[in-house]
């Protein structure tokens, strides 16, 4: 664990440094408050700090205030070290944003125990942040395929359309539906159907650029958003995706299965775009035409949509 120590007294600084290194801390030692504030206020700066109260340039409480101002988003555990021990001093130190204080000369065991308290609080915060991130992931991704879920892919499409309008670029929207998927489930069972969906998700992700979006739109429907795309290439990009999906049979527990996909394609040009619901409705209609044309093919919705 990284820790910053700041003290203008060279003895105290070295003593702290050695005491902390001995128990495995990665120590940054500085001799004044300004340097302490600089180190601590970096976004990836240490999250534990031991600050002497009396220091040149910036004193300990001033460093505390600076840290609280600049790194408000995350907890940084700050212990003030002081030979001041009046109640008024202690209250002033804590009010400036310190979490704890230690009177010097300090006892090494007390110092370590107080730092462990700080680490417990930091660990608690890490756990909460991780739990929040997991919940966010679950709220935005499909559990079977790990693709973006319907809510998230539509949100991203809306954002992308706004950006495309601002930058006068073209967004290509592709809605793909697995051909005869019900037959796969009915013939081989749902676990095999799930295997097919997972493998198709991998193939879809492998056939787009890293900054394009792929989401599971419905049961066996996938929505692909190609950002900043040349409208003249919309059909050829869709064709590449169709081939990537259907070129080789999908390996399943019940053997290799030939799987294909029909795709509706829509190129939305910058300028005043259609409402997202209309775009989704139009691309769904194009998909319906692809199904009607015999499946395993792509159909484009009208001419590229300009403005309305």
């Amino acid at each position, binding site marked *: 664990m990284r820790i910053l120590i700041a003290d203008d*007294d060279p003895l105290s600084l070295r*003593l702290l440094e050695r005491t902390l290194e001995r128990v495995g801390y990665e120590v940054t030692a500085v001799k004044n408050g300004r340097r302490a504030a600089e180190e601590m206020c970096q976004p990836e700066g240490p999250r534990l700090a031991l600050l002497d109260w009396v220091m040149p340039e910036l004193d300990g409480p001033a460093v505390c205030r600076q840290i609280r101002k600049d790194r408000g988003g995350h907890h940084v555990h700050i212990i003030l070290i002081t030979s001041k021990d009046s109640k008024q001093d202690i209250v002033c130190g804590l009010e400036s944003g310190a979490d704890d204080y230690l009177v*010097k000369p300090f006892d090494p065991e007390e110092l370590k125990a107080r730092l462990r308290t700080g680490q417990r609080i930091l660990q608690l915060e890490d756990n909460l942040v991780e739990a929040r991130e997991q919940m966010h992931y679950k709220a935005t991704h499909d559990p079977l395929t790990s693709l973006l879920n319907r809510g998230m892919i539509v949100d991203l499409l809306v954002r992308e359309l706004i950006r495309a309008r601002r930058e006068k670029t073209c967004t290509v929207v592709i809605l793909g539906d697995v051909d005869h998927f019900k037959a796969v489930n009915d013939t081989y069972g749902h676990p095999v159907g799930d295997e097919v969906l997972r493998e198709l998700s991998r193939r879809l992700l492998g056939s787009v650029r890293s900054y394009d979006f792929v989401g599971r739109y419905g049961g066996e429907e996938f929505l692909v958003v190609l950002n900043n795309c040349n409208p003249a290439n919309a059909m050829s990009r869709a064709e590449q995706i169709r081939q990537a999906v259907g070129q080789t049979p999908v390996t399943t527990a019940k053997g290799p299965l030939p799987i294909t996909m029909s795709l509706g394609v829509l190129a939305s040009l910058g300028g005043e775009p259609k409402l997202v619901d209309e775009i989704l409705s139009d691309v769904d209609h194009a998909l319906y035409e692809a199904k009607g044309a015999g499946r395993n093919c792509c159909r484009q919705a009208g001419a590229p949509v300009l403005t309305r």
Partner: protein
Amino acid sequence: MNSFSALAEFLNLPELLDRVEGDEDLLRELLALFQEDLPASREALQAAIAGGDLGEIERAAHRLKGMLANLSAGGAASFAAEIESAARVGNAPKIPGLVQLFDPQIIALSAALDSFMASA
């Protein structure tokens, strides 16, 4: 505390060895740091007294007090603390007398450290 026993008159060695967790190399390093810093710290105090600047006297005495306390040099540390507090409350007339008591302690400690390091 064997090799350090020559310093027992000035420093509370059991307490000091606890503070460095028995690390004698670290203790030698701290003593050397003190010796290195002492002339400038004393000069700062003397200059502040000569200039009659109570704020500077308080800061200089505070710094000396901190170093001496870390070395468990109880006697000298308590005189430094008294100088600091006299300066803080504005009791300037008390300060020269305290310095007269403080200086010999510091000089004796520094001499003991010199001979300790020469022998080590």
